[in-house]
C-alpha cells in the first residue's frame, strides 16, 4: 500500500540562491545565471511532462522527463521536491498507472517562484 508523500514547503529564490552559494561557492553573477538556467530547465521538463501526460501518458517518456526534473531539483538543493520527481520517474519506469498529472501540477506550484525568474 502506498503512503502519501508529504508536500515540501514552496521553493524560494532566497533558499536556492543560498544553496548555490554554499554548495558551489558561486559568485552573485554566476548565481543569477544558474538560477535562470535552472528555471528554464524546470520549465522544459515540466512542460514536457504535462504534454506527455496529457497525450495518453507514454510511460518511458514520463520516466525520462521525471529523471531530468529530479536532477535539476537535486542541483538546486531541493531534495524533498526531487523525491516527488523521483516518484514520477520510478513509478513510470515500473509501469505503474498513477495520477502523474496531479504530481506534476503539485511540483509546478511548488517551484513557481523559480519559474518566474526567467521572465524577470
Amino acid at each position: 500500500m502506498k503512503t502519501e508523500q508529504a508536500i515540501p514547503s514552496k521553493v524560494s529564490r532566497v533558499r536556492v540562491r543560498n544553496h548555490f552559494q554554499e554548495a558551489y561557492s558561486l559568485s552573485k553573477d554566476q548565481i543569477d545565471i544558474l538560477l535562470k538556467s535552472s528555471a528554464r530547465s524546470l520549465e522544459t521538463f515540466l512542460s514536457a511532462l504535462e504534454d506527455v501526460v496529457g497525450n495518453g501518458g507514454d510511460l518511458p517518456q514520463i520516466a525520462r522527463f521525471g529523471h531530468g526534473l529530479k536532477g535539476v531539483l537535486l542541483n538546486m538543493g531541493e531534495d524533498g521536491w526531487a523525491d516527488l520527481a523521483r516518484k514520477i520517474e520510478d513509478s513510470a519506469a515500473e509501469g505503474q498507472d498513477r495520477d502523474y498529472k496531479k504530481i506534476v501540477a503539485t511540483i509546478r506550484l511548488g517551484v513557481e517562484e523559480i519559474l518566474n525568474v526567467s521572465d524577470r
Partner: protein
Amino acid sequence: MVGGMGVQHRILLVDDDPAQRTLLNMCLERGDFAVIEAGNGEEAFRVLEKEPEIRLVITDLDMPVMHGFDLISKVRESDLRYRYIIVLTSSEDKKSLVKALSLGADDYIPKPVRPDELRLRVEGGIRLLRLEIQEELILSMAKLAEYRSDETGYHLERVLFYTRTLGRDLGMKYPHLKISTQLAEEFARVSPLHDIGKVAIPDSILHKPGKLTSEEFEIMKNHASIGGQLLKDIYTKSRSPYLKVAYEAAMYHHERYNGNGYPAGLKGEDIPLVARIVALADMYDAMTSERCYKKAFSHEKAKRIIIEEKGEHLDPKMVDSFLDKEEEWLAIRERFQD
C-alpha cells in the same frame, strides 16, 4: 592549477540539461579547464571526431538522440588515442553505473555533483592521461635509438608482434608462468625499449660494417646495462610497473639460458621472463633482417639456429612455442617487410 605552465585541459561536457551543463561548467572553469559542451551523445561524438586533442569526457547517461552508453561504446570502438570518460550518475543507480564501467567508462561522479569531488576526479583522469603521454615519449626514445642504430624499417614492430605471440602462447601452455593476456600485452608494449641503450654506443661501433673487435664488442655489450639502468632510474622515480618490465627487458635480453650471457650472467629461470621472451624475438628478427654487417638469413636457416640454441642461448619453452607458432611468426615477418 592542474594545467600547469599555462596548459589548459579541454573537457567535453555532455548533458541534455543546459542547467546541469552551466553548473558543471562554472565548477570546472575555476580549475582552469576549458569546457566544450554537447547536448547529446551524437553531438559529442562529432566534436570528438573534429577535435582529437580533447582527451577527457564527462557525460550524462540518460540523454535523447544518443544515450551515454552508446557514446561510451562509440568512443571506445573508434579510439585512436585513449579518452578518459567520467559518467554522471545518480548514486542509487548502481545498475547503470556498472553497465557504463563495463562499456569502458573510467570513473563516475554521483549527482548532485560536489565541486571538490568533481575537480579531484577530473585531476585523477588527467594524471592517468599524463602517464600515457610519458609512455609515448619513452617509446619515441626507442624509435630514436632504432633510427640511430640503422635498424630501420619495421624492426621494433616485428619484435613487438613476435613478443606478443610468444607471450600469449606461453600463457596458455604454461599456467605456472602466470602470463595473462594483459601481461603478454605489457611484454609486447615494452619490447621496443630493449635496445634503448644503443643511443650511448659510438657510431664507429654501431655502424661498423663487418665483425667487431673484442674491444669493440665489449663496448657494444654495454648497451644492455646502459638501457637497463636508464629505465630503472625512471622506474624508481615513477614506480610505474610498465617501466619495471621495460627495465628487465632492456637489462637482461642478452642473458643466455646456459648462464653465458651478459651483463649479469644470469642462468635459466633466474633470467626475467620478459627478457627470455624478447631474447628470442630480437634474435629471430636480427637473423632474418639485413644489417650493415650481414645479409638476411632465410627463415629455415634462422629456425635451425634457434633449434640448436634450445637450452643453450634460449629457454626451451620459448623455442617450443616458436616451432608451434611458426606460421604466425612467418605471417608477422611477411606483414612488416622493410
